[in-house]
């Protein structure tokens, strides 16, 4: 029976499917393969446009740590993006719980805002955020710009609308009877949330957390303005490394590719580990 319904559900003849997939995989894997090949090529071979490496220059991966400040950048990125992930998943859980379980005026407006806020261009907010942080420094006597706090707070805020939206889509599938049962047993709302809701919605927490992490890890716009050489994230470090290759001496393209690959690995690893949940999260209708 199963085999038959599968036969009925077939969409493409096998040869056509094979052809389509071959083309797609070539298009996707071509540049990825080149990236890997170039990262073990000599700088000269990449600059010449050679497709195959001239030997196996694994030392590119050793040299990048002294050519650039990528090491410090990666630490900064991990600290900032990691903190953003944890805090935003937690805050999103709180906000989403309120949005799903309590009826209040303006709830639909808040939900709508969650979606709308995601599509406000970052370039619009960059300068006002900069001015605001600078003024805060003068008014309160604390330095914000140049510290990790500046990007941390910024990313946190940009992550929250999407994280909250993801949590809303998870929490609204949990039956309200769950909370009611717990509350009848005398549990406080806080206890219900931490002991009943949070454990049941951990796939949502993972998705919110991972997306918040990626937002921090991938950003160049805010980090290029709000950080200084000591607090630069890996993204800005790589962008500067890439931009400084033209003009003058031999560009160290092999090393640049190695550095790019190093920056990509944590992201691809996260994706592969949490793939199932992330794909579900991506289809919830968020803009990211």
């Amino acid at each position, binding site marked *: 029976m199963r085999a038959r319904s599968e036969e*009925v559900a077939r969409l493409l003849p096998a040869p056509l499917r094979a052809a389509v997939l071959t083309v797609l*995989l070539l298009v*996707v894997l071509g*540049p990825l393969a080149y990236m890997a090949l170039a990262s073990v090529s000599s700088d000269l071979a990449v600059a010449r*446009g050679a497709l195959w490496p001239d030997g196996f220059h694994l030392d590119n991966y050793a040299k990048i740590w002294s050519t650039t400040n990528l090491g410090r950048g990666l630490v900064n990125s991990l600290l900032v993006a990691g903190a953003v992930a944890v805090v935003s998943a937690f805050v999103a859980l709180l*906000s989403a719980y309120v949005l799903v379980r309590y009826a209040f005026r303006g709830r639909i407006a808040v939900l709508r805002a969650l979606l709308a806020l995601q599509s406000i261009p970052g370039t619009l907010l960059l300068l006002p955020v900069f001015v605001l942080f600078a003024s805060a420094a003068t008014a309160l006597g604390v330095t914000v710009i140049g510290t990790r706090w500046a990007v941390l707070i910024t990313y946190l805020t*940009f992550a929250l609308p999407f994280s909250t939206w993801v949590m809303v889509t998870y929490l609204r599938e949990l039956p*309200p009877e769950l909370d009611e049962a717990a509350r009848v047993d005398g549990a406080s709302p806080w206890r219900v949330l931490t002991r009943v809701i949070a454990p049941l919605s951990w796939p949502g927490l993972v998705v919110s957390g991972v997306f918040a992490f990626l937002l921090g890890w991938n950003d*160049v716009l805010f980090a290029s303005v709000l950080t200084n050489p000591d607090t630069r994230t890996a993204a800005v470090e790589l962008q500067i490394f890439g931009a400084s290759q033209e003009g003058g001496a031999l560009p160290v393209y092999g090393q640049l590719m190695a550095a790019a690959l190093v920056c990509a690995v944590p992201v691809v690893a996260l994706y592969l580990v949490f793939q199932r949940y992330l794909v579900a999260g991506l289809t919830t209708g968020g803009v990211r």
Partner: protein
Amino acid sequence: MFLPGGVLTLLVIVVPLALALYISLLDLDQYSIREWVGAEFIGFENYVEAVRDSNLVHAIGLSVGYSALVTVGCLPIGLAAAVATQDRFKGRGLVRSVLLVPYVLPAFVVGSTWRIIFQPDGVANEVLGTSGLWLNGPRSFWALVIVQLWAGWPLVYLLAAAGLQSLDVTVHEAAALDGAGWWAKLRHVVLPQLRGPVSLALVISFLHNVNSFTLPFVLFGVPSPYDVEVLPVLTYVESFQNFEFGLSVAMAVVSLVLVAIPMAVYLRAVRLDTGRGQR
């Protein structure tokens, strides 16, 4: 419990948004930025200058044009991928994972990689048998389209695949009973059912491209070549290279208007209710 999220959103999004609207009415440059509260109020002059004497109109045309092109281009690729990975076959899980990788890669990594691929002596010219510049001049526009397409199409694939999975099996049975061939079934039965998720994907893709800063910034660097001086990059350069802050923010406000229309469409399309039987 609502407080932490609300306060942060207010502090870093709503207040700056209001501030942006205000700054766009000020004569703010590198000399007046320190005392920005006291900068001269000049009404809509920044907007007038942006339209008349800057590359704003060109940038808008460019942003809308290339975003539309990329979005339309994503459609057949994404649909083909979704349809081709729907039937069971050996290694399907792996193929599905691999197809999403370009979308998952950080834009700054994608930009850095293609910057090397497209450099004048680079592998793109070598493989294509062409010569000349890809990162400058008229061809740079196509370089941008190609790279955004490469990185962006999996979103359409993703949403279309999700739509296909939720397709009722009776749809297939009905088509089989009618004796429809694969193309007729695809064309008249399956694809029409995907209209919802695919339109959503297209709107999201358009918004993503119009707002995309990192990829053009990393791919072409600044100052950006004229042919790829898209709106986000122009805004950034006006602020942090030319220090024309008021003008730059006015441009950014205009870009807000640009995303408002697709945004409105998108808001109507997404399910907003919060649970069962609660209103």
